[in-house]
């Protein structure tokens, strides 16, 4: 997955309210939906003057950098470092072919639906994914779905999946703390792949904070491989 494609899939499956250009920068209004939808990025070559003019207009001193996307991206990373922006919250992307993740699930282990049910919103809210982030999902224009995991007649987890062309991306994968290590996460990934296959997607990807080692272990066990990363620069 090229850094550029990863950025595109992110933008399509977890969209900001509004994206607008100021000089060399793309600014985002995330509607309170978190840094993934609020961070600014660079759209092309820029001069130091351009950058400083754009910085003056930034509502939030936060950039996202996809290393390797372009020469401008690397230049921005360095320029922000010079201006005192710290490297912040590195994120890793994982992916696997949809057909490798898809498969049978135990009876009623996952439940695909849209719009999200209250129990699913509850699971998300408990995991810090509040209404503003559910509104991010609502903004997705392409195929999308909410998944509810069931463990022993309980709602044990939830996830959101959306498609962009033949790419499907999972967001907001949450398993209730008391119900972890019982397979719900794996079921959600498989259900996500099954749904993605129905939509004609070829690859299923997701992003996770580098420090979330438990989740990263789950994705590796499920057969996903690291395919990219990005990080933020924050003043």
């Amino acid at each position: 997955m090229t850094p550029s494609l990863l950025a595109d899939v992110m933008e399509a499956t977890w969209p900001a309210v509004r994206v607008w250009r100021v000089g060399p920068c793309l600014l985002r209004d995330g509607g309170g939906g978190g840094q993934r939808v609020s961070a600014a990025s660079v759209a092309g070559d820029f001069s130091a003057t351009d950058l400083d003019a754009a910085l003056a207009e930034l509502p939030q001193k936060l950039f996202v950098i996809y290393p390797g996307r372009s020469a401008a991206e690397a230049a921005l990373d360095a320029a922000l470092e010079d201006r005192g922006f710290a490297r912040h919250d590195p994120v890793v992307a994982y992916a696997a072919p949809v057909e490798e993740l898809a498969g049978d699930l135990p009876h009623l282990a996952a439940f695909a639906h849209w719009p999200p049910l209250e129990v699913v919103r509850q699971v998300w809210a408990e995991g810090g994914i509040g209404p503003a982030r559910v509104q991010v999902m609502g903004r997705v224009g392409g195929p999308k779905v909410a998944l509810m995991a069931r463990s022993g007649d309980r709602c044990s987890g939830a996830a959101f999946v959306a498609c962009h062309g033949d790419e499907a991306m999972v967001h907001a994968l949450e398993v209730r703390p008391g119900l972890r290590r019982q397979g719900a996460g794996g079921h959600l990934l498989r259900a996500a792949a099954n749904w993605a296959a129905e939509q004609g997607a070829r690859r299923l990807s997701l992003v996770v904070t580098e420090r979330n080692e438990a989740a990263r272990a789950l994705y590796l066990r499920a057969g996903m491989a690291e395919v990219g990363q990005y990080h933020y620069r924050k003043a």
Partner: protein
Amino acid sequence: MTKAYCAIAALVSGLLAGPAAALDLTMPGPVAAQESRQEPAATYILPTGPITDGQLPHRRLEGALDQRAWVLDARGVSSLELLQPLRAELVAQGFQIIFECETHGCGGFDFRFTVDVMPEPAMHVDLGDFRFLSAEKGDEAVTLLVSRSPAFGFVQLTRLGALPLPPPAPLNTDLPELPIATEPAAPPEGPTTPVVAPEPPQVAGDLAATLRAQGSVVLEDLVFASGAAALEPGDYPSLLSLAAWLAESPENSVLLVGHTDSSGALKANVDLSKRRAEGVRQALLALPGVKAGQVRAEGVGPLAPRASNLTEEGRQKNRRVEAVMASGQ
């Protein structure tokens, strides 16, 4: 793009078996319309007695299901007159009647909404006049449900041929039988749309505010009779608030989702939850300013519990209808 919950019609089917042969009965009147459905392997609740204390005595059967419904041109014909010749034919074919009942003797309303009934308009059940019987012959079981409207007679015949359970076959769908429908059919504009737009209510209350803020809200104040689909009549604050919000703008729309506890058959619960949501929809449409296209109703049965089904308190919490904001999602 909006997606809807699917109608979970074939929840208990999906295994491999040949369809049961249709049972040949002569209809007691000219057939105006006919519907049928077959499931090669279904689970069927065969009623064996009237509903008592909310429980339907039954036998749980598995096999090939063949269900047919006939609409008969039978003005002025009673439900008994419809049933008698059909019962005689069944007996003549060697069936033994194991249970027979009439309206209130069956359990009335609760019975109607517990037994498996094909959707309108294929089958109509007058809650004040219906008859039912269960019969069996060897490894075959049939049920007959008859009712009438002023102009028509309605007959539903369900036959379950007991077949040996086939070995479990992999399901051909990836998600366990709960795919989502791609696009909901636009509900027809109902006759409840007032000709003159009413004064919009001043404030949409707290519930609508919660719905807007959270995206979904459980309508905690609704009261349903036990096992029944219809909402008890009343002025429910939740519905008044929802209606006011819907009346504010035609852009506002809501999906009502019914839920049940986990007691009883999955498919029956999914059906019941959907009918309850539909009952709430009808109550909403009766309020001023709400247009049919703004409200959809679906049911997910026991699939999304919010509490444990092991206690009565939890089961009660699980029986609910929630409103999910459909606009802007």
